[in-house]
């Protein structure tokens, strides 16, 4: 049986645990129809021209873990950013782990999507926000929606600052031969509030895992969301991340994506504007090796005047790794005085590494400042020579240059301990000891 068929036929089993009279369930059923009709995207779809899911969906995956895996804290502690002092929503094989988590309902909600989807007190919120920005016609998003059941639910009420960052981590235990995960997250940040979130997917064994994740983020008036995606998984783990953000006036939403490891990663990151004086920030560092493949597909839809967006993606590719950047900026006729900037700079360290970079600017307003720049090059030999004349060996010199190249993205990381962690990961990835802490 093809995996697509399995996804459709397994839906009956999934439904058994659901409340079928619920309106959420209607949403799921409709979404399944979309997926059934559209199926997995193929290279014939323009948006998937450079990324093929064929090698992933040829395999078979368990959709529901058979047994509950237990993980010792000591085995996964290293994947936490902080030992203490964060809210944590931790899942193992898609199942909530109360033991590893640290949730709250004290002034803000950091809890579970399963609770939000089923408990009456969240009913209004779910009716207002669930699946409202995720596009109905995207097949992978629809697939996620049809199985939407668990994930993180975050609600920050108005005029409040989440005092601790929130870590959302999805572990896969390796209990299954191969596992398909579909977490569904919802983040609502009310007027004049702030939150910082770190999201991570981590395999603990080399059993194949594919995660098809959907996150909807609502950023209300004057709110600030600072979101970090840490993608540094094993070479057997793949991730399709669909993140949809809607912003109201004078809000700021920032997403940093650090794609440092995994088999295949596709980031669909979409920003929608619902008011004026909005700031959207999209930044990324991609460092790949082996046969890894990362595809960043971004959209900022400027549909209101006086808004600003900044995109800055740096990529460093060695061996046979492949990078794709597809950055779309859409400026509606009404969106005058838009400032929209996009940068995508890539360095290829080996002959067999490839990058496809495609800026897509569609501008219908006449009084705007939009710019884009895309570069694909080799490492600057002159700069390497400079470092080597100081006695720094070639490998370390390359690492220093790589670090310098990615630096302006790293600089904007607001959490010092996260910045340190990422710097450490990059240094390890480059396999050097530079003699100082980056």
């Amino acid at each position, binding site marked *: 049986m093809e995996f697509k068929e399995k996804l459709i036929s397994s839906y009956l089993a999934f439904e058994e645990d659901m409340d079928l009279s619920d309106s959420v369930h209607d949403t799921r059923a409709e979404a399944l129809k979309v997926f059934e009709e559209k199926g997995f995207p193929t290279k014939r779809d323009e948006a998937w021209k450079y990324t093929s899911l064929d090698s992933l969906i040829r395999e078979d995956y368990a959709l529901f873990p058979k047994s509950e895996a237990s993980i010792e804290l000591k085995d996964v502690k290293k994947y936490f950013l902080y030992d203490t002092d964060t809210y944590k929503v931790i899942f193992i094989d898609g199942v909530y782990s109360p033991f590893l988590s640290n949730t709250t309902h004290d002034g803000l909600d950091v809890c579970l999507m399963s609770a939000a989807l089923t408990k009456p007190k969240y009913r209004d919120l779910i009716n207002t926000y669930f699946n409202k920005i995720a596009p109905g016609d995207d097949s992978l998003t629809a697939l996620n929606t049809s199985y939407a059941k668990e994930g993180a639910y975050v609600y920050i009420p108005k005029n409040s600052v989440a005092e601790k960052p929130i870590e959302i981590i999805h572990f896969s235990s390796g209990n299954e031969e191969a596992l398909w995960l579909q977490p569904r997250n919802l983040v609502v940040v009310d007027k004049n509030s702030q939150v910082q979130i770190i999201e991570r997917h981590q395999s603990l064994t080399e059993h194949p895992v594919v995660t098809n994740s959907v996150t909807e983020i609502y950023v209300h008036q004057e709110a600030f969301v600072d979101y970090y995606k840490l993608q540094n998984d094993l070479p057997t783990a793949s991730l399709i991340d669909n993140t949809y953000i809607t912003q109201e006036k004078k809000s700021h939403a920032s997403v940093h994506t650090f794609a440092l490891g995994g088999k295949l990663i596709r980031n669909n990151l979409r920003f929608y504007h619902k008011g004026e004086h909005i700031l959207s920030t999209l930044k990324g560092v991609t460092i790949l090796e082996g046969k890894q493949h990362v595809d960043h597909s971004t959209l900022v839809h400027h549909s209101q005047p006086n808004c600003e967006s900044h995109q800055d993606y740096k990529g460093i590719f060695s061996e046979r790794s492949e990078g794709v950047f597809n950055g779309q900026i859409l400026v509606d006729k009404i969106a005058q005085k838009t400032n929209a900037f996009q940068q995508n700079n890539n360095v290829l360290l080996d002959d067999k590494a490839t990058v496809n970079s495609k800026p897509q600017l569609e501008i219908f307003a006449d009084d705007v400042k939009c710019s884009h720049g895309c570069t694909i090059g080799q490492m*600057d*030999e*002159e*700069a390497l*020579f*400079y*470092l*080597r*004349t*100081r*006695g*720094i*060996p*070639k490998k*370390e*010199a390359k690492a*220093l*240059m790589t*670090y*310098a190249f990615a*630096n*302006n993205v*790293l*600089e904007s990381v607001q959490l010092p301990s996260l910045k340190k962690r990422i710097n450490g990961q990059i240094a390890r990835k480059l396999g050097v000891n*530079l*003699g*100082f802490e*980056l």
Partner: protein
Amino acid sequence: MLTIENLHAQVDGKAILNGIDLDVKAGEVHAIMGPNGSGKSTLSSVIAGNEDYEVTQGKLLLKGNDLAELDAEERAHLGIFLSFQYPVEIPGVTVTNFIKTAINANRKAQGLEEMPASDLLKKIREKAKLLEIDSKFLSRSLNEGFSGGEKKRNEIFQMAMLEPALSILDETDSGLDIDALKIVANGVNKLKGKHNAVVVITHYQRLLDYIVPDFVHVLFDGKIVKSGTKELAHELEKKGYDWIKELA
């Protein structure tokens, strides 16, 4: 210290150096002058080990070690330092961290332990003072947003920290105002001694008023066409380079 015999080098098949002979002894300062395009910068790049240039003939020795098969970093470990005309910017890496990386890379090559942090800081403070560099400068990203003068001062600061046997200063005077020039020259003068040597590459005589050479060589068309003492530099300043071309 440095022995160059009949050195020929080319880049992209184009001959730039056409048989250079030069002998620099410890404790000496040599100036290499010449018009634009005479091969001055090529010579410094070839000595430092830039792989863009191919040595086709001749010999290059430092303290008796044949440099032919050595990479740029290995030459640095032997004690060659090149002060660049256009130093490279490294965002996100501070001057202090960069120097720490460089010093410890050199120590590692010599089989030494890393320099203790306290010793390193002491040395940084001492050498920064010598070049009138303030501590704020040291925590800035290497060369990023530096003025021309700051870049050159930073080059000499690195030289001071690395204590090379042979320093090659490539057009160190370009882009410097007179005050910066004096500071840089003063730094170089304090660093030179019995056991090291300096090769100053310059188009103009100006720098040589402050770093006084023992010998002056004139390079033209990839060859040294005339050698002399510091008076030769004055003569060039007065007469220009045209008469040199006739010697070639």
